[in-house]
């Protein structure tokens, strides 16, 4: 049974390219386009990993991460940001910057 990953970003092209790339590497991928959607999807889908953008309209990545880590304390979540890692404060989540260093990201999620 392949691992399942939820990819969350309000940029649909970003979500689509990432879904395709992770599919290539054998992941089952699902997409969500906001923090709310991500929380709902995780509640119903129970994914193994979540890759989520920080800056999104409505419930942003930070707030969604806080809800998810409360609901699913053992769920590995990786946050993506166009800003610096240090700018994403008050989280214990792992953070990567855009444009993504994909090999490093694979190591982080598949290791």
């Amino acid at each position, binding site marked *: 049974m392949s691992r399942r990953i939820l990819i969350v970003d309000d*940029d649909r092209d*970003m979500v689509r390219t990432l879904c*395709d*790339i992770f599919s290539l590497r054998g992941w089952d991928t699902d997409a969500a386009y906001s923090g709310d959607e991500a929380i709902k999807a995780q509640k119903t889908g129970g994914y193994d990993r979540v890759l989520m953008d920080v800056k999104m309209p409505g419930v942003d990545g930070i707030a969604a991460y806080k809800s998810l880590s409360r609901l699913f304390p053992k769920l590995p979540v990786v946050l993506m940001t*166009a800003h610096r890692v240090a700018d994403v404060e008050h989280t214990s989540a792992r953070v990567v910057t*855009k*444009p993504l260093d*994909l090999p490093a990201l694979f190591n982080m999620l598949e290791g």
Partner: protein
Amino acid sequence: MGVISRRSIRTKAPLAAVALILLVVATLSTASIVVLRRTLRDHAAERLRTLADQLGETFRTNTAALRVRTTGIASRPEIAAYLVNPSAVSEAAAIAALAPIGPQPELSLAIEIRDQSGRVRLTSPASADTAKLIEQADSSDLSGLVAAASGSDPGAALGRLRQSGDIIFYPTVARIPGHADASIVNWRRIGNSAQARTQLARILGSEASFFFGNADGTIWSELGQPALPPAAAPAGQVFEFTRPGRETVIGVRGVIESTSWAYSLEFPAHVVEAPARAFMWTMSSIAAGCLIVGGLAAWWLSRRVAVPIETLREAADAIAAGRTDQRVHLSREDQLGRLGAAFNGMAAEVEAVRRHLEEAVEKRTGELRSAQESLARREKLALIGHLASGVGHEIRNPLGVMANAVYYLEAVQADASPQVRQYLGILRQQIQLCAKIVNDLLELSRATPVKRERVGVNRLVDERLQRIESGAAFVADIPHDLPAVAVDPVHAGQVLDNLLSNAVQAMNGTPGTVSVRARATGDGFVCLEVSDTGPGISQEHFSKVFEPLFTTKARGIGLGLALSKSLAQANGGDLALVSAPDQSATFAFILPVAEGSA
């Protein structure tokens, strides 16, 4: 200019001196002349009195002699015989006896025998004119004279003067002894001969005039010629008097004893005062000489004073007008010379102070301009940073999507033609380059608070040199005893990175050397100089290198040096271009020495 010269010492001093001399001479002359005139008049009065006394005495003697002579005639026996027995014989003898005696018989007019009623009984021979003169003469006082003669010692009395035409004459009456009913009347005229004048002039002097007449003011003569009486004045008192048409005289009056006559002795006032006038002329000449000499001396002195003062004033005006290098040259040893020296000292002081002020103003202006430029640069940088940050972050998203897409394509098109794979490679590299530019921009424009700490200059430079990826040669000359500096190591690193990468780029790929030299400036700073061997910065660009958005590079947005200078200043130091235009560039990075490291 006319107004100024009227008010100048050069004009006023000589005028004042002349006025003063004039005042002194005039006062002295006037006082002297007044005293002199009084003295001269006193002296003249004294002389007049003496002469008048002498004349009075002469008159008294002469009239006394006349009375005696008349008494002598009256005592002749022929006259008594005639009165006792009037007959032709006795009459002839009596007429012969009526002849004048004594000096100047020519002045005798007639000698008469008159009876008690005043009728002429007998008279000496006389011309018709003379007889007529006497006949018409006033005889009203004769009876009084008879009475007066009776009571006097010689037994004769002189009558008042009478005038008829130019002739002035008088009677002398004597009693005939033993004949109370008859008396002798001796008529004589006043002489006016040249001899008399000469005699009088010998006694009185040629300038003196002599008048005499009746004491009651009637019938006055000057040497026998009728004349106006003098001023009424008590005998012996000096008077001043002017007859109509004649000059003013100083005179003295006298009375002739036992007669009703008076006389007046007079000197012309101008003769008396002649020495005073001569003195006045002498004084005037002396005064004129004094005025000329004094005026010239005052003019020369005032010139000696006024010319240097004028020179000083012109110099003071020049200094007031801003020409503080103005000096005066007074080659003299007196107070004015010392004033000139003091003025020059003051002018030098003024010039020094002015120069000092100008320098201070220039320095402060420079500092102000620098601060203003620094502020403007910081504001511009903050704005640019803000913009760059917003745009940079936004660009990262599309770059991310593109990078993902290329990654996917390269993964699924592993079997594609080499050309397709090559093009995908080009896309990937350009996306990476783009991402790097954005990263660099964000890194440059990131404003972080200054966290200064003690850092060794050696460590700072070494760390940065190791990170440079370039084929250029690097030479570092950092003395080991250099004091540590107090800066934010991240900021200092950023500045150094910028300077080093600029230096490498300046050489434009040609072989060259980048030198880093450090030295303590001695006033609390370390100067870190970064030089390259490139062509340097042109004159045209020289003043703009620290302006934000200024760049000469094909790729670059012109923030590096502007940010570096801002960071250097924020850390208490500075950044400056110290090489000349068009010569290999050298930038000086000034860092403050850490406390206790000096």
